[in-house]
Structures are given as C-alpha cells and as structure tokens.
C-alpha cells in the first residue's frame, strides 16, 4: 500500500486545489480497491511462509527484515502529506 503511494502519479497531488478532480478520485478509488482485495492474499501467503519456516532466524531474514527495510525506504519516498499521517 505504501509502495503505491510512493510511486503514485505526482499529478494526483497537484490536484490539491479547491477543485475536486473526479477522475483522479475514481482512479484512486480503483487502485485502493485493488490494494484492499490483494492485501488479504498477500497477508495469507506471508503468514503461511512465516509459520512454514522452521526457524525464527529464517523467517526474520527471508521476509520480516527485508519487509521492514523496504517499509523504511518507501516511507522516505512518500509525499509529505502521507508521512504526516503516519507520524505519531
């Protein structure tokens, strides 16, 4: 999800004016639904992989640490508006 926001067309952000860009909203809505629907499949696959790993070391090194590192990198690429939402 965060990757999507990092890669999203910057023109969307340019619509931050008083006019509401209906097409941009629809495009975001479609993308959000895709992310939402696929997220449960990704979650299931990740959960199965983590539990299949015999060792915690393998689970952390193969999935969890790369994911955390990826999250940090993506966070830095996010538009400030989204970074603001993620800050405590």
């Amino acid at each position, binding site marked *: *999800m*965060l990757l999507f*926001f990092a890669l*999203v067309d910057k023109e*969307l*952000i340019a*619509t*931050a*004016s*008083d006019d*509401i*860009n*209906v*097409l*941009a*909203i*629809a495009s*975001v*809505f*479609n993308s*959000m*639904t*895709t*992310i*939402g*629907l696929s*997220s*449960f499949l990704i*979650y*299931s696959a990740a*959960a*199965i992989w983590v*539990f*299949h790993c*015999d060792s915690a070391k393998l689970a952390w090194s193969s999935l969890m640490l790369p994911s955390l590192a990826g999250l940090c990198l993506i966070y830095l690429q996010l*538009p400030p*508006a*989204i970074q*603001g*939402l*993620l800050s405590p």
Partner: protein
Amino acid sequence: MTTNSKTDKPRRFRQSMTALHTWIGLLPSWILYFIFITGTAGYFDSEINQWMQPELPIAGPPKDQTTMLAMAEQELYQQAPDAEHWIIELPNEREPYLHIYWETHLTKADKEGLSEEEVEAKREALQGDLLLDPQSGKPLNYSGKAEKARDTAGGDTLYRMHYRLRYLPDGFARNLVILASLFMLIALITGIIIHKNIFKDFFRFRKDKPLRALLDGHNIFSVFSLPFQLMITYSGLLFFLSSIMPLLIFAPVAMMGFDVENMRSARSIEEMSEKNQALIKVVEEHIFKLPVELEPSGKKVDTISLELVAQRLISEQGERKIDEVTIDNIGDSNARVAFFFPSEIDSSASTNIVYDGVSGEQIVKEDSGIELSAVTEVDTVMRNLHEGLFAPPLLRWLYFISGLMGAGMIATGSILWSAKRRRQLEQRQAKHIGVSLVEALNAATVIGLPIGVAAFFWANRIIPAQLESRVEWEVHSMFIAWAIMFVHALLQNKSRVWFEQCLIAAIAFALLPLLNGLTGERHLLNSLPQKDWIMAGFDLCMIAIAGLFFAIALKLHKRQADKATAHSASQLSQGA
C-alpha cells in the same frame, strides 16, 4: 536420498501447516462460532422480526405498485405533511407490509446551544414511521386489540451481533471480529493444503470410531461448503477494509489536499468542513451513484403526485420491481423523487432513477467519464454475495444451510482438538485444566449458544409487551441463559454435559411453536391453513432444530449406555 528429500519437503510443509491449522483454528473458534450462528440467523432477520412481533396481522396480497405508492403518499400527507423527507418501502416476499417513514434534518442553527441528548430528542421528535396494510393503505389493525406491535430486539439484533458482538466497546469488538476473521482465512487455506484426499473425504464417514467420526464430520462440513466459507470469510474482511487499513481511505484524501483531521474528528458529515463535505458528495454521486441531495430552496411549490411519477417511470422503464421511494424537500422547488430497485448480485443497492419533484422530468446525470475497474466490480460482487440481499428464497435457504455447516465445521474442529487431548491424557492417566476448560467452552458454546438464542425467543413472549426496557432484556436473557450453560458445563460431570444440554436445547426449541400459540394468533394451526409461510416457516424450523438436538441427545445417551454396559462387563470378567 534425492527421492526422500523430494517427498520430505511436501510432508514437512503439510506438517507445519497442520500445526498452524490446529492452533489458528482453535483459538478464535468460540467467537467464530458465535459469528456464524448469529450471522446465519441474520439471513432470516425479517422473518425473525415478524415472529417477534406477534401482534402483526397477516398481510393481504399487495395491490399494484402505483396504487400502493398513491395510498402511502395519502397517509404521509395525513401523518407528516410538514416533514422534509419521506421514505416509502414497498412490500416484498419477506416483508409484506407497506412501510412509511418521515423525517426532517436538523440544520446547524437548529442544533446551536443544545446538548447531544437534546439534539437527539429533537431529531426523534421530527421523525416517525408507520406500517400500512398493502391492501387498504391504512395503518395496520394489530391483533389482540394492541395499539402497536411490541418493541423487540428482533432478528436485526442477532444479525448485528455477528459483526458488533455485544457488551463490548465498538472498536474492541470490531478488532476482535477482524482478528477472528483473519485467523479463519488462514485456517481455511491451511485446511485445503493439509487435505490430501478432498474427493475421497467427501464420501467418508466412519461413524463407529468416535474420533474418526469427528474428523470425518469436520471434513464433510468443510468440503461441502468450502466455496461458501472462503467467500464469506474473504468478503467479510472486505467490509472491514477501512478499519484494517485506515490509510487506504485517508491517504488519498490527504494527498488531494483535504483535511483528514477534520474528517476523523467529525461525528457526522454536517460537522465536516465545506471542502470535505464537497468531496463526500462527489464520492457519493460518482463512485456510489447515489442521488444528489439538494438543499431546500425555500420557494414553496406543490410536489408532483407520486402516482404520476410512477406512471412515467413505468412508461420509460417498463414494469419494474420497486424497492423503495424517497421524496426529498417536499413542497419545495428543489423537490426530488428517487426510485430505488432491489439489489442484484452485480449491482449495489443504490441503483436508482431520480425525477424532479415538481416537473416530474427524469434527471439524467451528466456522464462524468468515470469507469470503475473490474476489481471494483469484484469488490461489489463479493460484498453483495456476503449480504445475500439479492437471494431468492431457495438460495437464501442455501445460505442458511451453508452458514450452519460453517458453524458445524468450527464446532467439530474444536471438539476434535479436545477429544484428541483427552484421549492422550487418559492414556497417561493425567489431568489438564486447559483441556477441561476447552471442553467446557466447547459444550457451553456449541450447545449453550443455541440455548441462549432459544431463550432470546422465549423472552420475547414472556417479558410483558409494555415493559420499557424489554428490548434490552430480550438480549440479556440470551446471554444469561448462555452463562448458565457455561456454569453447568464447568460443574457437571463431563459425560453428562453434552447429553443434558442437547436435551435442554431440544425442549427449548420444541416448545417455541406452542409458546407462539399461547401468546399469539398466528400459530401453526392458523398459519398453515392460511399459507402464512413466514410464521409457519419459523415454527417448523424451530421443530426441525429441536428434532436435530433430540437426535444428538439420543445418540449420546445410547453411547453412554453402551459404555456403561461395556464397563460393567469388563468388571464382571475381571471379578470372575
């Protein structure tokens, strides 16, 4: 060696998945069972509502839609001529009455200086509803000289409990349901992975070996209804998408320059900033295709008669089943009449056609060029599949049976877990408080919860119809009965608990039709000859459920008797 490592890998994978399936299935099993039982009952919420209001008379056959709309309009002019909004629900197979509602929205000025309670009281004073006879269009004549049908928690409460639970703070209950559903999804997928012989297990039931019978029962429930279980779990999670990933909603909102903080803190749309309100209007109109609600202009003009608009709709669209009609800004030049149609599997419930409430001209929306993607269509279909509102009677029964199979799958799974552990403990002649607790929870949930539901129905007829807090007490009765069953399961001898609770459940459900006869006029002796299928269906269903519990009780009794005979025979032979 190579061959071994090749066969070892899938075996090891299946083993790890078996452990995951066992634990991830057991931990949320009691909550999931509650969700499945209350959710399954929810597929017949309207029918349960009607059984729980025995004062409702049998509805006659409805008149044609245009006449019914005209009758409803006439009654609304009498009941609430000054209201801003009217809603008319037309009768259907499940809800045979003509239902009218009226309300006037409070403006910001109306709410100024008032406390939350005062605002709520003012809002309630400006709204109302009434059930009409679909034949005469007049308010219903309630049976037993009652002025109105009793207040009841009804089937709606059972339905709501499947995602809100009860007595818990909203957020906590929602998170608990989400967590249980996420566990269920993994349990289903791992269940498929560990199942080597899906086709073979479909036909296998080894009833003479108790543990094997439980496993076969678990497999049969799961395999028979697998597509339903996958659909219902996955689509159920979709309803919680914004709770699981709030960023999914708020991030695009923030990116487009809207005020997220204002959106989060506002309790209603009216409290949001103007820009946020505008965004919500755009989403409602273009994404969810809802009719645009105009502010009243203040210019008084007569609203066109509903009969005329309905005739125009029929001439333009042909005879089409109408679900609901809303009339906004009555008596104002900005009046709007919107017709809503029954939801279908691939369309949202908001499919509608809007007319100008003064000229009667259809308001054709401008094409905004928005095309929702195939994924969004899938999302709509999944949500509609979950709710099953489109389902005709036969399919609704299939939903009901599949839901019960889901409950059966969960129940057999958790019983299997405790039965296996109990056997291991017996072999070692050991005791374990955890296993005993799971056993008590299993009995108290699997049989105790249905007893609680029966108590809910009993309370509906026993609690005086005029008692003010009767709605709450109907629900309290359900949970009190369930708690008593839990205490019973904890204290009673393990070998007797299941038999006794099954017997209690059988008696509680079997006597419900009799209770209906004693407290209402639409009992089986009347409902069957009058083809009153809603009431007759409920009573017959209760008898069928009672029969099922009685059959299980008999089976358990026979098994106990066999065990006792075998035990005394072995003691005799030892003595000899």
